[in-house]
């Protein structure tokens, strides 16, 4: 059997309530993005491309669709003899009551037996709701070179926004973390934690067992485990990430992340065959632009039929724009139909929604993007 030196655990339990109706039925990591993807395709593809074979997915909120989506792992090639994607909802165990995951750290604590069964040297903790490409094996190399106990991926954010993030204050020479501040009013650095951690498993295991017993702990990596490690004088290092990274927490930011794809150099380069983002391939017919259609500055996937006018927009699998309809600055999710003569502007239209003939939705001058989650009558 191949040695699984690093196991990945993806935290995918969050509801993402600021995405409103989009996450009524599905967890945030299963929300669609970029025409044919779901957000969780990014960490999973990154794992597959980084040579990680075993991935655990910690689910909690509305996990049925997410479970069936990730199960088997074949979409990301994680289905060979020694690899796999495992969905890990809270379980009832012989020695403990069934309990929800009380925090990010607790989700791992409750699955120590799962991790132990693979006997990994390192464990990679990821968030299931970020869009980015990253080679985790390079981060592991840095972790080993630093002889670190924990390595935390950080992103340089504009100083004026730093107070919105968990900020790492580091020794500029070595990158060793000296202090961690959650949303500091007066930030001393602009290195924001991306919620991506590599731990040496033996040590983390010990810390988690202690944390489980600590009644004052909120069982969170950022709030409890990392500060405890710093207190104990452990070796924590920051790993600087450069490139596209987006936390799509709101309708506006989800829309923006989609619009980013319309630029030639968008930083995400989904067409880069050396780091493919894998996803489900739904049976769909080839996309078709009819003699009445027009498409400019758009990202369009298979199954779409365009008979109307599409500009500055992203169309997901099977979206249809009928003759005389106009779609501008918008995102049409899977199976959306925009009937004859309808106009959609600055809107994000949820899966399967129908916009009736001649209807007008969204406002070109609005500050926020309108979410259309229910059928609109013509």
């Amino acid at each position, binding site marked *: 059997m191949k040695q699984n030196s690093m196991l990945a655990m993806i935290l995918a339990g969050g509801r993402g309530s600021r995405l409103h109706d989009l996450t009524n039925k599905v967890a945030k990591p299963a929300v669609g993005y970029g025409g044919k993807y779901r957000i969780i395709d990014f960490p999973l593809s990154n794992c597959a491309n980084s040579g990680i074979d075993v991935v655990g997915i910690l689910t909690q909120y509305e996990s049925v669709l997410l479970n069936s989506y990730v199960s088997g792992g074949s979409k990301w090639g994680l289905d060979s003899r020694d690899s796999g994607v495992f969905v890990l909802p809270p379980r009832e165990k012989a020695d403990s009551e069934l309990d929800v995951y009380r925090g990010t750290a607790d989700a791992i604590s409750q699955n120590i037996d799962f991790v132990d069964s693979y006997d990994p040297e390192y464990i990679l903790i990821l968030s299931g709701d970020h869009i980015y490409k990253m080679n985790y094996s390079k981060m592991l190399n840095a972790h080993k070179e630093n002889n670190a106990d924990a390595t935390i991926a950080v992103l340089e954010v504009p100083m004026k926004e730093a107070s919105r993030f968990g900020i790492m204050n580091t020794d500029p020479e070595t990158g060793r973390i000296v202090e961690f501040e959650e949303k500091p009013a007066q930030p001393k650095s602009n290195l924001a934690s991306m919620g991506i951690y590599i731990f040496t498993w033996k040590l983390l295991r010990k810390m988690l067992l202690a944390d489980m017993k600590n009644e004052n702990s909120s069982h969170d990596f950022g709030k409890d485990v990392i500060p405890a490690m710093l207190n104990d004088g452990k070796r924590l290092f920051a790993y600087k990430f450069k490139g596209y990274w987006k936390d799509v927490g709101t309708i506006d930011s989800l829309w923006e992340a989609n619009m980013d794809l319309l630029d030639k150099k968008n930083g995400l380069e989904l*067409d880069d065959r050396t780091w493919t983002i894998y996803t489900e391939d739904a049976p769909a017919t080839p996309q078709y*632009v009819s*003699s009445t259609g027009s498409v400019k500055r758009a990202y369009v996937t298979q199954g779409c039929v365009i008979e109307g006018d599409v500009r500055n927009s992203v169309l997901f699998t099977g979206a249809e724009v009928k003759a005389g309809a106009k779609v501008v600055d918008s995102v049409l999710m899977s199976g959306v139909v925009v009937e004859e003569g309808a106009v959609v502007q600055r809107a994000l239209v949820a899966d399967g929604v129908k916009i009736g003939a001649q209807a007008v939705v969204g406002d070109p001058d609005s500050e926020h993007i309108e979410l259309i989650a229910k059928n609109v009558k013509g």
Partner: protein
Amino acid sequence: MVRALGIISFSESNVWVEGMESFRSIAAFPFLGRYRVVDFPISNMSNSGIDRIQVYIRRKPQSLVQHLGTGRHYNINSKSGYLRMMFASSTEENDYYNTDIRTYMEFIDHIKNTSNTHVVIAPGYMIYQQDYAAMLNAHIESGADISVLYHAVDNAKDAYQNCYCVNLNRQKGVKSFELNSGTAKNRNIFMDTYVMSKAMFLDLLDEAQKLSSMYTLRMIINAKCDELDIRGVAHKGFFAPITDFKSYYDANLSVNREKIAETLFKQSWPIYTRTNDSCPAQYFESAEVKGSFIANGSVVEGTVIDSVVGRDCKIKPGAVVRNAVLLDNVTIGEGVHIEGQVVDKNAQVIHMKEIIADPEHPGYIKRNDVV
């Protein structure tokens, strides 16, 4: 319910697609930028509940093997069913000897030793949608020895040049098969599709061997039209046999998206294919696209009219593509104007600023070529 064995056949020796077939078998030809021709017969079988499928391959297997792989994407249970590739292992200099029957005989154990009572044989070089379960039930109901599929056309003078026709009597009994001579407009084009019992199939193979080592399945059945009860079953909807270069070009460009929605791309009848993990297609400000199929991974900055663009193609600014079929990963350079062409995989049209042919006589740009 009877459980039929599915057989995907290769064409007779009169079929050859100039240019493209040097690189891959017709079954592996791309269709509408997304599919391979073989996806249609296999999906038809899979959707009809046929879960043991043998694909017979005569030459240039690489492309087809890569596409079929484990067959998992065709929605077949991989334990109780299978998708198997059967390679013709020996070939004679004289192509008349390289018949379908010769290859069936090579694998006769694989055909005999299945619990299947019937066979459905469909060509790996024709595109159409058909419910074989319905055809099989009707066949059993009718008590006929063999049922064959045909498509009535009114343009047999100009098209279907390498196809056979079925001559029917009034009761839809098949009197004979003959090569389309192009002398009549209205003909019943034979769709090289058969339904029969496995016992009948094995008898025919035996008999063909005894009569002539150059006989194909169609030939032996033709010779037995008087003896056997052979029924023609009419097919309606989209039908595109790929039997020469022109028919491949026409098959891609004759597709009327509005019309075929119900006859080839039914919601209840998915056509499965292998994903190649391309990202969505990207259209830029300068893109002008009309009446065209565009596959994922393509980047469109130029003009595309009445064409099919395969995966990962690049249409540069100022380029004009009209009445053309682009296979995968083709580049049409800045200011290049192409019309009436089939551009094979990986070709780059950069230096030639104008390559124009009449759609009646389309041109072929070679695979991997830079022009």
